[in-house]
């Protein structure tokens, strides 16, 4: 294989065709112009990143499946599978136009079904850019499945996933990436701590609060009971898949390669934040509860990844370490806080995506450098809280919008289709109740919780 590549490249470099087309319009000689080469390389990069982000759906699926009970596993995986399908449809029909179409500062209003848009955008073909953005949309939608796991009706979930991908996510995205009012203010979110993770995390918070806790999760005295996940191996596979996909999530958001310096920086920051998130969460849990808990440590790595998602291109690696470590600590405290408030989040979606999404957004204003593309220098460098203030405005408005709209959406679904399954079905398991099949057919899996 290597020999053939070497042979081809030697032949290509000495061939008269290549020598003739260098420096001229390539089409005349059948060669390729440097501009086309740049566009081609950038397109390949963005598409590979899109495929990685798509693969994160498998990561989310495995994490969610591993952290819930076996009797509900088929259900969560079906929700995870279908919400990407619904996101693909919704983001094509309406979502992309709302998010990136020309309009006003609040929402876009062109590009329904991608009609009437330019063939290239940001230096790459429209279709490649669409796929990349659609994968992000799917990621935001699937965050909620984990928070509302083990007691939500499937039909309601399908409706919700279409609405969030077609309407809610694109509107917030328009403010920040579609040239909307936050972007004009100088708000910066490189790969989506706010657009994807805060939106998904707080939609999950609204959903899980309206659903109320699982049967038996909180005792009469308010103390939380353990409803243990059934497969730590699946969950840890999921975390590694997410970490892997996140390299596409963050580095792909550069939307191009140029000399590789940006994507190199993004990649190292992404990795350091994840690693430190895992370490910090493990230390926190070890000291707090006496034993190093793998599930919390993995949540910590995910928290680090969420937190670095906004600042990844704007910070130095040392800052990525700080950001990841703090996120790992915050997520452990966040899980405890939710239990104190008796908000049942089976997989930790709210602390990981919602709370750490906000933290990551704020970190842009603390650790970001204007030399790397920010409107204002971060607090650590300039002592000026201007960028931090802008980031706070963005976070607060995004949270407020999501909480308001998702409350309406979930309440409407509750009134029409019904949000929560019946008690009998919840105890027997949603696999049988909703799908009439078992995730582990042929196994006698007993659940006494």
């Amino acid at each position, binding site marked *: 294989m290597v020999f053939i590549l070497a042979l081809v490249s030697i032949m290509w470099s000495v061939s008269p065709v290549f020598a003739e087309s260098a420096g001229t319009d390539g089409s005349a000689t059948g060669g390729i112009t440097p501009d086309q080469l740049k566009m081609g390389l950038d397109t390949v990069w963005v598409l590979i990143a899109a495929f990685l982000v798509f693969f994160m759906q498998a990561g989310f699926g495995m994490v969610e499946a591993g952290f819930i009970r076996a009797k509900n596993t088929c259900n969560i995986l079906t929700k995870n599978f279908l919400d990407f399908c619904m996101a693909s449809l919704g983001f094509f029909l309406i979502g992309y136009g709302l998010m990136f179409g020309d309009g006003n500062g609040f929402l876009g209003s062109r590009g329904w079904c991608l009609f009437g848009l330019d063939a290239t955008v940001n230096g790459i073909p429209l279709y490649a850019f669409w796929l990349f953005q659609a994968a992000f949309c799917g990621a935001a939608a699937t965050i909620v499945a984990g928070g509302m796991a083990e007691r939500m009706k499937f039909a309601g979930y399908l409706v919700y996933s279409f609405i969030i991908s077609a309407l809610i996510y694109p509107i917030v995205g328009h403010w920040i990436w579609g040239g909307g009012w936050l972007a004009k203010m100088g708000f910066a979110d490189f790969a989506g701590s706010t657009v994807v993770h805060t939106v998904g995390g707080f939609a999950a918070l609204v959903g899980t609060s309206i659903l109320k806790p699982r049967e038996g999760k909180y005792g009469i005295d308010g103390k939380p009971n353990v409803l243990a996940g059934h497969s730590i191996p699946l969950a840890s596979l999921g975390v590694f898949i997410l970490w892997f996909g996140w390299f596409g999530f963050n580095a792909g958001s550069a939307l191009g390669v140029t000399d590789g310096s940006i994507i190199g920086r993004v990649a190292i920051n992404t990795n350091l934040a994840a690693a430190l998130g895992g370490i910090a969460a493990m230390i926190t849990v070890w000291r707090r509860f006496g034993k190093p808990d793998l599930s919390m440590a993995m949540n910590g790595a995910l928290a680090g990844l969420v937190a670095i998602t906004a600042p990844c291109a704007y910070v130095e690696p040392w800052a990525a370490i700080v950001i990841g470590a703090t996120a790992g600590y915050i997520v452990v405290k966040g899980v405890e806080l939710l239990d104190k408030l008796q908000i049942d989040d089976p997989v930790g979606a709210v602390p990981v995506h919602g709370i750490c999404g906000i933290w990551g957004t704020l970190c842009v204003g603390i650790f970001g450098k204007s030399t790397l593309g920010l409107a204002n220098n971060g607090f650590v460098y300039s002592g000026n809280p201007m960028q931090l203030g802008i980031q706070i405005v963005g976070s607060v408005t995004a949270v407020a919008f999501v909480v308001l709209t998702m409350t309406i959406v979930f309440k409407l679904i509750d009134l029409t289709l019904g949000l929560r399954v019946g008690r009998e079905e919840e105890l027997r398991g949603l696999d049988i109740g909703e799908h009439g099949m078992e995730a582990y057919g042929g196994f006698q899996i*007993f659940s006494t919780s």
Partner: protein
Amino acid sequence: MKLIIAYIQPHKLQDVKKALCKKEVFKMSVTNALGCGEQMGYEESYRGIKFEVNLLKKVRLEIAVNEGFVEKTIEAIIEGAKTGQIGDGKIFIVDLVECIRIRTGERGGKAIG
């Protein structure tokens, strides 16, 4: 000495254990079982084909008790496991001929504890 065998719904186990603790019965064995009584099965489907599932998941408790504890244990199990619906389960009482504690070799009522 009696051996009390009870078949209950799996998700009622926590309630039954709590009720037993309140009556100061702490020792028991728990096994998983499949069973059916008056409860009918349910339907599942796989790739377009429907089938009946008739053996349902149950939990089997075994508690060895001295005479004085028999009624208390039965009351506790019923209090924890009863929902009023078909499928609550059954309790069997079996005479226990002998009981030996392995660690010390004690026999009889003292071994039950």
